[in-house]
């Protein structure tokens, strides 16, 4: 009856209901997908029982050095590999896990479980891991290397300290968030490395090191608001969140690209932290100190060859920002003469020690000074610091912190000065830039 009375109404109602139902169904399935607990992925078991001989353990130790695993998986002053170091991210703090063979660590893990974590970013119980663990990189590690790493970690003295619980904000602390993140940004590495041909075997080894264990893109790739890069293996440079250090582009010779460097200089930089007029500082100092200075000559050369052949990216046209006013320049000069000239030279020419090697880097013509992002300069001026003490550069000269002496506007004036003097042509720095970049870490 009703249908006859309102035939058109009913049809219209039906017409509205269908899309709504479809939408609900879609939402429901998305929700179900998000909320459904994930079982551990089936992984192909090791062909044989993983080796535990001394040679394999030693190779695993070297691979762990290549990957710099210890730095993140050790709390300050704590037991090596027992985890507990807090890694600050824009979403909260993630604490590194205990990798020693104890019940609090990898005690119950098999070599397959370990491979699943490296290759798929999934924990033994099926939980997805937080991408603070750079599994977009570790997914490129071969199964053989994974098994050697596993053998090395099994050889460590067990430590029963459990990792502290992560302190992440909702919704980042949910498995659903990780599912979304993975769907958008995680790409599983190839099951086997590309077939090698003899001529570029070294470059391929370099690529394997840079993409996998070296996890260079964890810092040197630009990051979006979700802490990801559209291409997670990109090396185009990015601001490291929270730390507010800019990891310069490895493809742009105007940033940190080494296409025009000699192989020897590239190797020297990674081996000693110093080459020509360049010094490593900031987060890269940690990498050189704990990892690259211990790499084999062959691996350093392979990485250098790979970095050297990276396709160049164009330098964006130099900023046409107006030169700083005479007053600003005068104030900058005064600050420079008082605070900086003693070590960096009256004309930003830097200084060399009695051995003829670099003591204080030049500021004139230094690409680290003219990077578009002034982040690193702000960190260096505020916090000072030393280049890493390495076998090849055991007694670096230090830079004092100026955080107690210089205001944000002083730092801005000073940086604007050094970025526009002696032929340097970079955009001025404002007090607001300094305030934003100093972050919580620099107070």
């Amino acid at each position, binding site marked *: 009856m009703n249908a006859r009375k309102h035939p058109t109404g009913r049809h219209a109602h039906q017409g509205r209901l269908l899309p709504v139902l479809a939408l609900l169904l879609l939402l429901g399935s998305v929700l179900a997908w998000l909320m459904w607990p994930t079982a551990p992925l089936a992984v192909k078991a090791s062909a044989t029982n993983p080796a535990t001989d001394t040679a394999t353990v030693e190779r695993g130790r070297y691979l762990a050095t290549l990957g710099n695993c210890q730095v993140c998986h050790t709390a*300050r002053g704590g037991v090596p590999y027992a985890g507990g170091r807090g890694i600050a991210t824009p979403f909260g703090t993630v604490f590194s896990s205990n990798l020693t063979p104890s019940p609090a660590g990898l005690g119950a893990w098999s070599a397959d479980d370990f491979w699943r974590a490296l290759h798929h970013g999934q924990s033994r119980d099926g939980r997805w891991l937080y991408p603070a663990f750079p599994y977009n990189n570790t997914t490129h590690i071969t199964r053989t290397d994974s098994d050697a790493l596993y053998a090395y970690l099994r050889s460590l003295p067990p430590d029963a300290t459990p990792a502290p619980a992560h302190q992440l904000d909702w919704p980042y602390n949910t498995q659903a968030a990780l599912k979304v993140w993975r769907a958008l940004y995680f790409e599983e590495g190839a099951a086997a490395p590309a077939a090698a041909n003899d001529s570029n075997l070294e470059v391929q080894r370099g690529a394997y090191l840079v993409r996998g264990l070296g996890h260079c893109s964890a810092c040197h790739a630009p990051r979006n608001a979700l802490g990801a890069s559209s291409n997670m293996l990109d090396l185009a440079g990015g601001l490291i969140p929270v730390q507010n250090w800019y990891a310069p582009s490895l493809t742009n010779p105007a940033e940190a690209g080494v296409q025009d460097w000699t192989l020897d200089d590239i190797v020297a930089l990674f081996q000693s932290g110093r080459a020509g007029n360049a010094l490593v500082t900031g987060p890269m100092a940690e990498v050189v100190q704990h990892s690259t200075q211990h790499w084999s000559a062959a691996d350093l050369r392979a990485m250098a060859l790979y970095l050297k052949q990276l396709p160049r990216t164009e330098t964006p046209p130099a900023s046409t920002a107006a030169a700083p006013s005479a007053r600003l320049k005068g104030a900058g000069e005064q600050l420079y003469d008082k605070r900086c*000239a003693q070590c960096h030279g009256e004309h930003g020419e830097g*200084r060399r020690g*009695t051995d003829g090697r670099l003591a204080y880097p030049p500021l004139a013509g230094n690409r680290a000074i003219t990077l578009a992002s002034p982040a690193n300069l702000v960190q260096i001026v505020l916090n000072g610091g030393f280049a890493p003490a390495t076998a090849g550069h*055991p007694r670096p000269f230090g830079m*004092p*912190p100026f955080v107690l002496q210089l205001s944000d506007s002083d730092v801005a004036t000073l940086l604007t000065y050094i970025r526009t003097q002696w032929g340097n042509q970079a955009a001025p720095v404002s007090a607001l830039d300094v305030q934003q970049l100093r972050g919580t870490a620099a107070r």
Partner: protein
Amino acid sequence: MSGRWSLIPSGSRKTHDPKFLRRYRPDRLCERIALFDFLIPLFTMFRTFSRCRLLGTLLSALASCLALPTLAAPPAFEDTIAQRTLACTACHGAQGRAAPDGYYPRIAGKPAGYLYNQLLHFREGRRSYRLMTHMVEPLSDSYLREMAEHFATLDLPYPAPSPVSATAQELQRGRQLALQGDATRQVPACVQCHGSALTGVQPGIPGLLGLPRDYLNSQMGAWRSGQRRAHTPDCMASIARRLSDGDVSAVSGWLASQSLPANPKSARALPAPLPLECGSAYAPSAAAATGGRP
């Protein structure tokens, strides 16, 4: 505990407060005196009813204003350990003779083992001050040792102690703790470990004279709250926890008011064994076993 100790007793400036440190810039004291920050010493006076403190602040500000024009041109570059450690003396004063702001302690002439231990403590998280940790983070054990030995060899005159606002009764209690200890609280006398002249003992025990009261107070607070630690057994932490608030203030007041003896150098050895075990007193190299770096 840490909450209570986040305020330095005796109404002095909060010199361990990062906010204060950010604002407080000794190099600008002259400008500041002329500006509204003039109110800070007035406020201090209001809180402590101490005219001496205000007078002291004004006098030292005046002294630094007068001293500024006489500052020599910066020394020429030298390829030396002193040049390499200019990063340290920027805060700890020229040659490590202590900063004019009364907080960053003197490092010149302290026993090398003690200094080396502190550098390791900062690097490995047993002491926490962000700037210090950042400084020592990328450095090797051997380079830190060289730095410690450099500052230990510097033999510089000590300034006269700054006036201390404390009652005679407080100073008497401080003297008693320093020289006799307090058996009822199982607190040994300072002299039992830090040397009969309180100038420290080689290789690992620091002297206690020539340090600002603010610094002494904040260190005792840090020992009590666990923010400052040493190698286990951590003797100073146990002692600091046995002291009352009043005791800390009394002993820091007495220590800060003492002049250095004619021979300010640390003693070669203690006449008697330590009254309690101290992990950091003897062998700094023990640290290498856990967190050591090549």
